[in-house]
């Protein structure tokens, strides 16, 4: 890592595993449940959050010395909302198709607790470059979980990945692939409760691999 000092590199790598926003801090669960029914939505959401969190952290960090502490939460909210609206407007004007795919997530990004959490916990106390790294790191940590959950939910729930049928053709009479042997899609995977269960399994796996994460009673 020639570009990043060891301390800076940790800002990126920590949220990927041992300080993951979803599995350790349990933030951003609402969007993780809502939009992971298909892989494409997960990827789009991950990229959107990375953009907003990276940029938002920098803006808040630059303003950190002039923000009145009494209204800092509202100021943070305005910054997120403004960024999201700007992105939405620009996409609508210049990449209309993409903006339609994204439109569902715009509201979800503003209310994503990870964003407010990082503004409050990190950007208010650190410089712009470190805040930027922290934002990207957390967004990647969030995105990785989203993509893993989206992968399993779409694969097991609909038998497709990114919309392509990977397990064969499930239409009765034209059965092929796994379906010809009696395999059936699990429709329950498409519903939100299964996202919670998949996230739970990920937390379980992570904690059994790294026992230092388990809290003592």
């Amino acid at each position: 890592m020639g570009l990043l000092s060891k301390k800076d590199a940790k800002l990126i790598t920590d949220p990927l595993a041992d300080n993951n926003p979803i599995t350790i801090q349990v933030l951003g669960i609402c969007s993780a449940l809502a939009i992971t029914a298909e892989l494409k939505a997960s990827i789009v959401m991950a990229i959107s959050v990375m953009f907003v969190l990276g940029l938002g952290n920098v803006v808040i960090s630059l303003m950190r010395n002039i923000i009145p502490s009494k209204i800092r939460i509202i100021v943070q909210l305005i910054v997120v909302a403004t960024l999201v609206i700007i992105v939405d407007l620009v996409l609508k004007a210049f990449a209309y198709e993409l903006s339609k795919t994204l439109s569902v997530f715009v509201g979800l990004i503003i209310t994503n607790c990870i964003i407010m959490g990082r503004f409050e916990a990190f950007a208010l106390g650190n410089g712009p470059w470190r805040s930027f790294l922290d934002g990207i790191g957390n967004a990647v940590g969030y995105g990785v979980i989203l993509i893993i959950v989206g992968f399993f939910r779409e694969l097991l729930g609909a038998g497709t990945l990114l919309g392509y049928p990977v397990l064969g053709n499930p239409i009765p009479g034209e059965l092929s692939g796994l379906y010809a042997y009696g395999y059936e899609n699990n429709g329950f995977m498409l519903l939100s409760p299964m996202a919670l269960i998949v996230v739970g399994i990920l937390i379980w796996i992570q904690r059994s691999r790294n026992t230092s994460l388990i809290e003592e009673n």
Partner: protein
Amino acid sequence: MSKRTDSNGYTMIFAVIMVLVVGSLLAFLASSLKPNIDENKRIEKQQNILYAMGVNENEGTSANFVSTNVAGDMFQEYIKKQIVIEGNKISESQDAYLIDVKKQQANAKDGKVRKLPLFVGKKDGKTFYVAPIRGKGLWDAIWGYVALDENMIVQGAYFDHKGETPGLGANIKQRYFMDDFIGEHLMSDTGVFKGITVAKGNNDPKNEDKTDYEVDAIAGATITGDGVSAMIKKDLAMYVPYFKTLKK
């Protein structure tokens, strides 16, 4: 140490300046990008109407519009007539496709006469009547365009939504759902308008029976599906009088 940023005066001034800066920035952006956005929406409408009557670039299982730069020309080529139905009055207008269905629905609620646009297209010698529909899904608006023949048999459908759940309700704009409507009858043999219900009962999973007034619902998208049924029943029923005049 008391910081200067803690005083009430500073907080007030900061809030006012922040609101002014952010407000004018967004207002400026919104108004300067509005022509672009409106143009995109206009082209999209043309693409939607063409899609419903089968002028599209579908491949495999994906739904693709004709590309944006040819949409205008294709629209001119395939859409022969744009009709506006206003009560008993029927007129033609080149801009009927710009009629805002949402606004017209609101007008109808206020007791005014609703303008109903209908697009008459011709492709491979066949005539299509494309009608816009609009309703409510689970979270927000859903809308679509349905192409019919003279007997109100569905020839093609396009649905879209503002904010249905990805993977569930949002799948109303997937080929497998939209294509199910093709061939479905809206009218009974005796001339009674039945509509099409998005039904959960799996009597006809392969959708072979085209006169059951039902298509298969999407699992986990009940309310969106009900919304689709409702907008088809409500909005297309208004075109029945016009289609009856075609038969005379």
